[in-house]
């Protein structure tokens, strides 16, 4: 490619605390009757004051720690002033120049480090609903979401492809779910993303003079599409010698394109100033140390441990640590097996049979594997010989398989079973046939 994409990302993660950021209202607003989770504070009534949610702040710091951030011992909240009907106070309580977490990174699977500029805490806004009431077009406001804690995670412009962005997002989602601080559900709006994309001219090490922000992206797949579209669109503009406009664009799902929403002549003036209603936060090293000790084992570390402790392959350990529940299930099964099965046997069974961990308790899983193995009295080497013989005797198997006819495998299995004349593990047979054919 002629140009080098320079991509940065802002992600908002809604925390799943019981109560809102600055009041005692329930933060669980999804699907609730509009305006039933409100009080003077989250409605911004005259005289109401914010009282910060300690747990939300702890969780924000926990996310920062998981992203290898520094936690400055001094931090504060600021007011970000702007008008919008869903913003009750005419300002959002956010953090400006002293966020809770700074200078972190997240490592992608190819070893590339995406630098995290900052992780800060803020409050969510209400929600506008445009509808028709008795024939009249109206805009209604639901304040249930007003004041729900949001953590904003901002990266440096370190991404070069949509694929990298997608992997980062998957890892970030996995991380906050591991920390058990957010459902990070895209469809429910628990996780919102805004990439900014620009292209750097060849042989230039200066950052581009413009930046295009894309909004309305509600899935990881779309973020990749939006970025690809932008790279193509901006390349074409640069090819003609022009510079793309600095603007905010919206993603259009039906044709995977983006359209201009508003051009930013200059940066908005939010008139930030320190929030006088909340005293600054001063941490001690001891407090940060305590938070660190609350940190569960994170996915990458767990996968690495699984490789070493259980002698698993990289891929298998990555699959087993995809969610904390999945990993816990595996380890519980290993404990249950005592020495009757190796961790690798258990891992293979869980992964290959796509075991539903909600349906089968770890202890029952072990019993099942043992049972399956009991029927599999045949020696692997012996079985291999039979498989080889079957494939040799039926050359069509190989020919059809190369043509992509998957059901020929079923035929091959049948042939092997017929020859063995015993009840054996079908999966094992399938594995050996695949091995022979590929």
């Amino acid at each position, binding site marked *: 490619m002629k140009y080098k994409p320079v991509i940065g990302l802002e992600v908002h993660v809604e925390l799943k605390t019981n109560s809102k950021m600055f009041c005692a209202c329930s933060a669980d607003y999804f699907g609730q009757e509009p305006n039933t989770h409100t009080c*003077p504070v989250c*409605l*911004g*009534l*005259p*005289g*109401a*004051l*914010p*009282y*910060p949610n300690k747990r939300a702040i702890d969780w924000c710091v926990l996310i920062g720690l998981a992203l290898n951030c520094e936690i400055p011992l001094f931090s504060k909240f600021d*007011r970000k*002033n702007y*008008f919008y*009907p869903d913003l*009750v*106070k*005419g*300002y959002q309580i956010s953090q400006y120049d002293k966020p809770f977490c700074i200078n972190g990174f997240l490592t992608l699977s190819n070893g590339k480090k995406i630098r995290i500029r900052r992780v800060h805490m803020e409050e969510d806004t209400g929600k506008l609903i445009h509808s028709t009431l008795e024939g009249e077009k109206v805009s209604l*406001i639901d304040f249930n979401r007003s004041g729900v804690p949001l953590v904003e995670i901002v990266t440096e412009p370190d991404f070069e492809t949509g694929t990298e962005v997608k992997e980062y997002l998957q890892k970030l989602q996995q991380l906050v779910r591991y920390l058990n601080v957010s459902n990070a559900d895209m469809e429910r709006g628990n996780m919102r993303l805004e990439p900014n994309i620009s292209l750097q001219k060849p042989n230039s090490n200066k950052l581009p003079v413009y930046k295009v922000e894309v909004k309305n992206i509600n899935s990881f797949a779309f973020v990749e599409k939006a970025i690809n579209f932008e790279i193509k669109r901006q390349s074409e503009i640069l090819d003609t010698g022009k510079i793309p406009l600095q603007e905010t664009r919206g993603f259009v799902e039906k044709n995977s394109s983006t359209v201009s929403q508003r051009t930013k002549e200059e*940066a908005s*003036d939010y*008139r*930030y*100033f320190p929030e*006088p*209603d*909340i*005293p600054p936060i001063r941490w001690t090293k001891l407090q940060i140390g305590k938070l660190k000790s609350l940190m569960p084992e994170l996915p990458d570390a767990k996968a690495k441990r699984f490789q070493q402790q259980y002698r698993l392959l990289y891929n298998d350990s990555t699959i087993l640590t995809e969610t904390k529940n999945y990993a816990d299930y595996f380890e519980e099964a290993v404990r249950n097996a005592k020495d009757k099965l190796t961790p690798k046997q258990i891992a293979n069974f869980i992964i290959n049979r796509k075991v539903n961990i909600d349906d089968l308790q770890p202890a029952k899983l072990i019993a099942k594997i043992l049972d399956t193995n009991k029927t599999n009295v045949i020696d692997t080497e012996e079985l291999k010989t039979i498989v080889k013989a079957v494939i040799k005797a039926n050359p069509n198997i190989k020919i059809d398989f190369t043509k992509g006819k998957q059901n020929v495998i079923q035929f091959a299995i049948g042939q092997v079973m017929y020859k063995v004349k015993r009840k054996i593990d079908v999966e094992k047979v399938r594995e050996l046939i695949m091995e022979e054919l590929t």
Partner: protein
Amino acid sequence: MNRLNLKQAKEGLKKKSFSSVELTKACLSQIERSDSKLNSFVTVTKETALRQAEAADKALDEGIDMPLLGIPIAIKDNFSTLGIRTTASSKVLDDYIPPFDATVVKKLKDAGAVLLGKTNMDAWAHGSSTETSDYGPTKNPWDLKRLPGGSSGGSAAATAANFCIASIGSETAGSIRQPASWCGVVGLKPTYGRVSRYGVIAMGSSLDSPGPITKTVEDAAILLEVLAGVDELDATTSQLPIEKFSKLSKKNLKTLRIGISEDYFIDGIDPEVEAKIKNAIKKLETEGAKVETIKLFDPKYAIDVYTIIQRCEVSSNLARYDGIRFGKGRGFFADEAKRRIMFGTYALSSGYYDQYYNKAQQVRTLIIDDFNKAFNKVDIIIAPTSPTLALPLGATEGASMFGEMADVLVEPSSIAGLCGINIPVGFSKSGLPIGMQLIGPQFSESLVLSVANQYEKLTQNEDWRKNKPEI
């Protein structure tokens, strides 16, 4: 009966000399008779008050003891009151009925108080005259052609005119002490963070301090004890334990070190004010107190700092009044609020923040240090509360910095978050009250109240104490 102070009223109720209903009715009928002259109330809550008084009488009969049981109290109209219209004297909130009580109101109710109504103020507390109220100016009970001061002018006037037993005000910089001075009553501005701001319509959030306006120092102490304390709804309240303020600890005047600063007797100060304050200080000196001249920053710097910080905070605090959820639209803001919104918005704008807000905060830190240094040498600082006597109606016209100038002597201590009290020390020849302020370090209310109380006792039998406003 309505002329009684809080302590006397409490004793009378306890001894069953009269009932709370009788006392409340006495206040209400005085309001009905005379408030058309003063305009000190925006809303009188007659029925609620009588209901509360009846309940208080029942509790008194049962021998229940609560610090304010059955005492009729007036509250400034910037305190949110459940089910009672709360306007902050602005037409923007003309029809706003809050669904919740301010913490101060809740504490008053929990202590058994009877709420007479909501008192007039400068709209949004922007001013020192109560002349900028959208509901018309309040007048000074000592001279109906003069201003009561402000912004808690309604509370100060109502207390001086015996429309209530005591009242509640709020001070950002001078709004309790200055009207108390002009109306000849006691006004206590507690340390910032001593009394919860929850439910007080925000003006300058880093400065606002609710406090009592009363007929005696002891009454102020009784009320402070009820109002003070940490509030889980206001993150800026102090964790410090509430002292037994009402016991009025006795500071030995012989060991008291009083600081006076010549800069607080500014050019243009009314000579009668200067003479009365100096005379009052002399009385304390005669009792053994040591008076030291100290050097403090010229109060004029505090005006600049205060003007910037307060207007920046105002511009943000008033943003919620967009008419979408409650109240009326922005068109209902009067000139003073509009001026402050524009000033604050400008000062916070990108490129100006460092020049104004940030610089002001830096100077604020210097002012705090300046006071800290002074309090290493002296226990309290005494100064005039206001450089002038109550000014005539119309004095604010065309004077957009009127408030800042009228409050020049209270702004430095407000900026520093200190506590201070205004106490009457006499009258001018024209019959207008003169007030003196005692300023102490943060959270030194006990000390300030003790000295103020001893001064009040010392001068209890002076002739001027017999003066009563004629309304």
